[in-house]
Each structure stands twice: as structure tokens, then as C-alpha cells.
């Protein structure tokens, strides 16, 4: 019995020693090798704990976080994981652009190293608490298992909004909100029972957006601020493959145009005729709903050979929300002539406060996610200045962005880690339009990104939980009749 007691006491002492303060610490003047890179970032006060891991197989890690008069110590083998309570207390004590200093001690090969501390700036600008995205393997145009998911950003809870296992493995496109309102959203569900699934305050409808004479069903789309209209592109999309390393897929349109759909009257209004045949895509409404921004390129017949010369400019045309009519072609204006800079614009998104237009710029083409050079640009609609967002962009693809409803945050998909798998990154923009270093969506297990085979495709923020789930979508797919649209001549 005495021997047993002795062993227990020795074990407890050993554990206490192992958990003790780092001794004989060597100082290292560089930032610690952590994943995800959460060093020197600005975070919203309502974000889930930023769990992270220390790379290069340490034996033990100690993180000392100091906020406004509050210190939290977290230990881990390799990972630093916060309990929700500790995290909330720490973050709440620092709201209002106060800093949390993170000092990291890492034990490796029996030696403790203390790295240069890094800061988390906690802003009171809240981020919309829900994020929807599509999970898909980066297998280009082919899919097998697809899910639309909704992640609660204040915790690690994930809900499945649609799963193609329940809809005969049919393809589903990404989920788009109107004004980041969970009661106004749509996504396209393909397959025999598919259509555009429209959610208006929880009432779900299935709409066939292809009409007689239109190029295709709706592809890229956006809601009018009133929620009554949707503007869509219709495209004939061709996927082809690059040969050179680093390059992957090239997707281009041989034809594309725009339509406005009136969801109240089930009508589809084509873009007004123009003199020259053009390619038009990625339409969005302005924040006041009186303008449609879109991307335009001259029609090219020699594709794919001349795809490197296929460059889209950012355009605008007026829209009358009272009549649901496109403006006259004389109201068409060039907002950003990317082709003049030998660039191509995709995915414009207006900020809800109407001050900014965030868009993607690539060297050419219309499918930026597989272009490594793709970057985000920010156009100030009040001054007309364009910011190349050097502190936001990476050497690899940064695109597929969406605003938070308060216009102080945006999320985008970036392949900066490996060039293959897209992940959602959040970026703060202050009242002066200054952006901060983006950070990736936190996960409960910080190594989760290393073992997933899925890309987070087209992340979109929303103010609340979407009022439907995967079983509702299955029911709609299997039993609801499709509504059709009347084309307006």
C-alpha cells in the first residue's frame, strides 16, 4: 500500500513539475510558427475562440494571453484550445480596439523558447454571426458529394442546409443572401427535381429561371435590396484544362447575358439590346437598388485560343425598382476599365452602406478561383479611388467575397495555404476604409484544415440562421412543382 501511495505521489509531483513554469527559457525574436497564422490580426468581439497549433512538433506549449488587466494561461501538447468561457471573458474585456497580447512558450527537445509576442486587436465592430458556404472537393467541374453548410461564427456549430445525398447527387450552387438577411436567399439546385430555390422569410419556392430565348437558367445572381427582384447572369460555360504547372482549370463563357427576375410577378426581363454582341456576367445591385453593376467583355469567337485576351471591365447600368425595368443603354457606364490595365474583373459586390465595391481582379478570363494571381480590389464609390489591398491579398487566389451587414467585415475564399483548397478568411475594414490582415475561420481542432479534402466555396455572411434545412430541400426537390417565368419582351 505504501508503495502504491509513493507511486501516486511521485506521479502527481511529476505532473506538477511537467505543468510548471518554463525554466531556462531561450528568447527568440521572431513570431512563433503557428497555424493558422493568427499573428497581428484584428478580430471581431463575437468570434469563436481562435484555437491554433504550434508547428514543427513541439513537446509542450504554453500561451500567456494578456488583455485589459486580465491574464489567461493555456497549456497544450501542440494545440492551444480555449474554453468558450475563458475566451469570452478575455475578448469582452478588450472590446474597443484594445489589444490581447499573446506570448508563446514552446518546449522542443527539452528546451523552452519564448517567442516574440503577437497582438489581437479586438474591435467592437461585430461580424454577422453566420457563414454559409459550399463544401466541395477541388475537382474542378466534377462533383460527387456536395453540401451547403451554415457555420455559427460565435461557436463551432455547423448545420447542413442542403446535402446532395438527399437530392440524387445533383449539383448545387452556392447560397446567396439579400442584404445578409437569412430570410432572403436563394441557391440553384440542378438535376431533374431542381430549380432555383428561393427563400423568402422561410417560405420556399422552386423556380425555373430558364425562359424561352434565354441562354441558360440563372447562374451568378444577386438580390435587389427590396428582395423583390433578382439579377442573374445566363451563361454557356466551358471548362478546359491548362497544361503548365501551377495553372489548372480555365472556365470561360462562349455566351453570357443578364436578366432581372421579378419574384412577385414571375417575370424575366432581358438586358436591353446593344449594338455589339457582348459577354455580360456577375451582376449585382447597388446598395440603393437603382443601379446594376456587372462585368462586360467584347464577344470573342476564337475561344479558347484567345482566352488570354478575354478581359472584363466593370460596368454599371441604371435600374428602376418601381417598374422593374433596366435603364436605357445610354445609362451604361464604365466603372473600372480593367482591360486598360490588362486585367479582368469578376464578382463585384457592393457594401451594404453603399460606400464600396469589392471585386476580384485576374490577368484574364472569368473564373478567378483557379487563377493564382487573382486578387481583391476595393473601389471607393464616393471618391472613385481603387485600393489593391496589398495587406489583404496573397500570392495565391483570393476571391469569392461577401460583406457583413455592417460593412465593417468581409469574408473571402483564399487558397493562400496550398494553392488547392479554398478557406474562408475574414478581413476588417475600418471607418476610413483601412483594411487589416485577414484571418482564417477558426476551427475547434486547429489541424482540421490539414486533413480535409474539401474546399470552402463561396462563403457568404448572414445576420441569422437560415430558416430551412437539408430535409426541407429534399422535400422540395422530390415533390414541389417548379414555377416558371414569363419573359418580358
Amino acid at each position, binding site marked *: 500500500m505504501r508503495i502504491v501511495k509513493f507511486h501516486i505521489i511521485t506521479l502527481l509531483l511529476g505532473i506538477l513539475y511537467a505543468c510548471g513554469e518554463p525554466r531556462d527559457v531561450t528568447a527568440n525574436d521572431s513570431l512563433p510558427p503557428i497555424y493558422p497564422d493568427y499573428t497581428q490580426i484584428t478580430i471581431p468581439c463575437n468570434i469563436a475562440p481562435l484555437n491554433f497549433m504550434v508547428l514543427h512538433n513541439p513537446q509542450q506549449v504554453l500561451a500567456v494571453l494578456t488583455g485589459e488587466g486580465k491574464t489567461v494561461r493555456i497549456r497544450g501538447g501542440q494545440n492551444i484550445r480555449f474554453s468558450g468561457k475563458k475566451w469570452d471573458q478575455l475578448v469582452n474585456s478588450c472590446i474597443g480596439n484594445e489589444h490581447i497580447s499573446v506570448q508563446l512558450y514552446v518546449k522542443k527537445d527539452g528546451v523552452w523558447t519564448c517567442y516574440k509576442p503577437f497582438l489581437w486587436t479586438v474591435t467592437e465592430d461585430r461580424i454577422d454571426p453566420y457563414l454559409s458556404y459550399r463544401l466541395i*472537393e*477541388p*475537382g*474542378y467541374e*466534377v*462533383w*460527387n*458529394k456536395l453540401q451547403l453548410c451554415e457555420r455559427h461564427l460565435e461557436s463551432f456549430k455547423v448545420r*447542413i442546409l442542403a*446535402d446532395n*445525398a*438527399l437530392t440524387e447527387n445533383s449539383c448545387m450552387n452556392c447560397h446567396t443572401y439579400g442584404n445578409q438577411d437569412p430570410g432572403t436567399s436563394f441557391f440553384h439546385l440542378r438535376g431533374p427535381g431542381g430549380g432555383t430555390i428561393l427563400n423568402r422569410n422561410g417560405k420556399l419556392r422552386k423556380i425555373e429561371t430558364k425562359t424561352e430565348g434565354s441562354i441558360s437558367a440563372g447562374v451568378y445572381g444577386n438580390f435587389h435590396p427590396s428582395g423583390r427582384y433578382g439579377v442573374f447572369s445566363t451563361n454557356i460555360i466551358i*471548362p*478546359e*484544362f*491548362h*497544361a*503548365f*504547372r*501551377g*495553372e*489548372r482549370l*480555365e472556365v470561360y463563357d462562349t455566351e453570357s447575358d443578364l436578366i432581372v427576375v421579378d419574384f412577385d410577378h414571375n417575370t424575366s426581363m432581358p438586358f436591353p439590346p446593344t449594338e455589339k454582341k457582348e459577354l455580360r456576367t456577375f451582376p449585382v445591385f447597388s446598395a440603393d437598388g437603382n443601379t446594376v453593376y456587372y462585368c462586360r467583355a467584347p464577344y470573342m469567337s476564337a475561344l*479558347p*485560343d484567345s*482566352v488570354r485576351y478575354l478581359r472584363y471591365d466593370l460596368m454599371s447600368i441604371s435600374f428602376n425598382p418601381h417598374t422593374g425595368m433596366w435603364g436605357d443603354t445610354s445609362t451604361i457606364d464604365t466603372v473600372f476599365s480593367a482591360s486598360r490595365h490588362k486585367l479582368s474583373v469578376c464578382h463585384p459586390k457592393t457594401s451594404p452602406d453603399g460606400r464600396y465595391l469589392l471585386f476580384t481582379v485576374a490577368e484574364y478570363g472569368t473564373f478567378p478561383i483557379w487563377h493564382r494571381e487573382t486578387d481583391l480590389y476595393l473601389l471607393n464609390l464616393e471618391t472613385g479611388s481603387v485600393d489593391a489591398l496589398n495587406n489583404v491579398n496573397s500570392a495565391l487566389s483570393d476571391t469569392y467575397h461577401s460583406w457583413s451587414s455592417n460593412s465593417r467585415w468581409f469574408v473571402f475564399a483564399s487558397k493562400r*495555404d*496550398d*494553392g*488547392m*483548397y479554398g478557406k474562408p478568411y475574414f478581413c476588417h475594414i475600418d471607418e476610413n476604409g483601412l483594411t487589416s490582415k485577414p484571418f482564417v475561420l477558426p476551427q475547434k*481542432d486547429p*489541424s*482540421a484544415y*490539414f*486533413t480535409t*479534402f474539401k474546399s470552402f466555396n463561396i462563403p457568404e455572411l448572414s445576420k441569422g440562421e437560415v430558416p430551412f*434545412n*437539408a*430535409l426541407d430541400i*429534399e422535400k422540395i426537390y422530390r415533390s414541389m412543382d417548379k414555377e416558371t417565368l414569363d419573359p418580358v419582351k
Partner: protein
Amino acid sequence: MRQWKNGMQWITAALIAVPCFTFLHFLYPYHLYLKEQLILFLATPDYFLSYFGKPAWLALYAGDFFTQFFYFRGGGPTVITITLLVLWWLSIQTLKQFRVAGRWAVVASPVLVIPEFLMLCGLHYKLGSTFSLILALTAFLIYSRLRPGDSRLRTFVLLLLLIPFLYWIAGSGVFFFLLCVIIFTLVQKKPRIQHLIFPLCLALLIPLAAKPVYLLPAGKLYLYPRSQHTTLTIDLVWEKVLSMDSESFWGHWDYVLDLADKYQLKNPVATYFTNLALSQTGMMPDRLMDYYQPATKGLFLPVSAESTPMTILFSNEVFFRLGDMNMAQHSAMLGMIFSPDGRSSRLVRRLADIHIINGEYEAADKYLRMLEQTLFHKRQSSIRREQIRTGSIPERVNIPAFDSIRSGDDCIASLNILLESNPGNKAALDYLLCYHLLNKDIPSFMEVYERWIPKDGSRVPDIYSQAILIYLTQHKVPAQAVRSYGIPDNILVDFMDYTRLFQENNAQSGPLRERFGKSYWFYYHFAVMVNHENS
């Protein structure tokens, strides 16, 4: 009597174990290797938690854990034999609960084991499905021991706990448990009908109730983890094809050709690996016609809506060996997407290789990290990390040196890009020439031949010589010019003989088959081009 029964048990066990192990080890090993290649078992918490997203988490987790051991020669047969012996022993115990006399229980016990063995011989049947049965039988034995005959309440509580729990850990195994409970109830002296209705309703309702959690269609909720593609057959032809596949993956090209000679399969996938081996050993232009050639379908495996997951899995191999890393990456990624669990150790290795060859080390790192989390692929990761460190990547010489855009099924564009990037890529050149030959497109063959093969007096391979003679004859080229191609004399003599026989026999294949059946001339005249997709 007891001694006799024990002896009988041992004999039955031996009758199960010995043939099972022998068959799997000596006649069926490649199916088991492929089963291991189609999973990726990671020792990470996230990976473990991923099993909870579907029913039968314990059966599948345990099944996949033991499937890792199929990596080794003898590992698969050992694991399956032990698993079937456990199943057999549980079957005997179960039969005893049904009041089957001991000796009859031993005699009847293989009834469950034999179909399970046959199903395990199929590629789509997971070891986890057998584990699901084992869990079901174990649960039944616990139930039969705990359940006192007359306590209705205790029986109901037990079933209420066991059925959902069993569905959670063993999926459709719960229905086997239910079957055992029904039989067990019926063989009681005073069977109570309510003892049947309650578990039946519970077992039928639980999967439906679990639908919001598992998000599976109704059919799959009742079958999981069993696949609807489950078969009860042993496919020895496919085993031969898989042997060529695995040996190709490991780069044992001479052995692949030995297998091709031995089996002489008339199967496009077998031809695909044979042609790959011919090209890797430099024998393609001499021996192409020694094997069954279903036009170009034995050169590249189509990746289309009609393709099977297996052909998609194999399709990256040719692009990888020829040097078209982007197409290899595309095919490998598709193979991964369509593999049963969407993750495959073989394809993770392949993707890591592709990215290393392309110099995309960040992407390679992701896959190498995954391999490091496995029990048996760690070494492969270390080898590749060393390769990155030393920069010794000889395969890089063959990858495209410039960019061009092509559609996913444009193999000719792919081969042209490879040749223009590296004219010394003999494998790509042979593939391009043979592609045209198998399409009977002699003008395109000659165009490529004239462009890429210098007339420097070196030996012209047999098949190319035969094709050139067809072209020269069709174009009535004078004898002087024929000589400039350096066609060997024996081929010229053969050609004259072939032509004479062809004319004498009014273009009948029969008299030519014996001597010229493996010549390109014979293929050119008599091979019928069939569109497999429409036939």
C-alpha cells in the same frame, strides 16, 4: 460427447480458416491490396469524429482500422480469416440460444460465414460491414443473457436501449439483431407476440428518426454500412486485372508484362496496363500487337459519366508516367472524389508525387502531412520529404514546359504538348504514334513520325515499319524512297508475303492469322472498330 463436439469445432474452424486464408493469400491478394488503397486511416481526433456523421461508426472505424493491415502481404488474409472465425464462433453461440443442439450448431454455423466471405471478396464490401454483423451478434448474446423470460418491462427497457445504441454503432446490423431476437422469441416455450412487435417497430423507426442527423436517403439509412453494389461472387478475372494495376502502381513493369503474357486478357483495363508497361520498358513499338488492342481504349481510360469509379481511379496512371502532371492531378482528384469514402491512401500518395514533380511544395505538404498521420504510409512521406530536400526529381524533365488549353479528353493535345516540351520523351512519342496506329489513322501517324523521328539509320521498330509500308504503298512511293526509311529487310519480305497471301485469299483473314495475326497489317485490315459506349 464433449470431446467429439470440441473436435468437430476445431475441424470446422480449420475448414473455414485454411481455405479462406489460402484462397485470399494465394489467389486473391490484389483485391485486398486495393481495398487498403481505397481508404486513408488517419490517427487524428478529427478523423475519428468524422465517423459519427453516419450510422455504424464503431463497425466502420474498427473495420477501417484493420483494413490498414491489408497493406502487407498476408495482412488482409490474416485479418479476414480471424474476423470470419470470430463471426463463426458468435454464430455457434447464437444458434445455441435458438436451442439448436451443440453439434448441429457447429454444422450450421458456416451458413453465415460463407456469404460474408463471398461478399468480402467484392471491392465494394467493407470489413466494417462484417464488424457490423459481429456487433449485432454480440448484442444479441448480451440480450439473451440479460433478458429473463418473464419480465416484460426489463425486456422492453433492454430493447429500447440496445436497438438505438446498436444502430448507432453498427448501422444495419441492427436488423440482424432483430432477426435473432425474433427467432429467439419464437423458440421460447411461450412466445409473446408483443415481444416481436415492439423490437420490430423500434428497429424500423430508429433509422427514419435518425435521418435528420445522418442525412441519408431512406434506402441507405436501412442498408448502411452495406453497399447496394454488394455481390456474392468471386471475380478471378478482375483479380488478374488488379494484379496488373497494383504492379503498375509499384512500377514493376517487367512483371506486368509477364502477367500480360500469362493471362492474355481481352479487357481494355488489362490492355491499358500492358501498354503502359510496354511503353515504360521501351517495347511498345515492337510488341504492341502481341496483345489485345481495343483501339485507343487500351491507351487512355475515359473519364466520363459512363466510367466506373475503378477506371477513374486507374486513369491517372498513364498521364503520370508520361509526364502530363496537370491531367494526372485532375484524374487523381476525380479518383479520390469517386472512391468509396472520398479519401484514398493511394491517391494521396499520387497527389503528393504530382505536386512534388510540379514543384508545388505547399500542396504536396498537405498530402504528406496526411500520410504522416497513418500507420504504414509514414515511410512514403519521409522518402518524399527527402526528395524535396535534395531536389532530386528526375520526373520533372518530362512535364509540360509551356501552357496551352485543352479539353479534358483531348489526349492528342496532351501528347503533343509533352513532345513539344521535351522531344526526348520517348514514352509520349510512342503513345502518340500508337494512338494514331490504333485509330488506323496512317496519315497522322506519318506526320508525327516524320516530325519527331530522325532518319539517322537507327533501327525502325517492327510496328512502325509495318505502318510506314502501308503508307508508302498507298502513296505508291518508289523503291528508292522506301529504302530511305531504313525498314529492316525481314519486314519487307514479310510485307510481300502478306500482300501476296492477302490477294490470293481474297482478303480473308483466316489464312493470314497464323503467321501475321500479330502484325499491324492484320490489325489494319481486319480489326473492327467498335464504339463500346454504344455497343
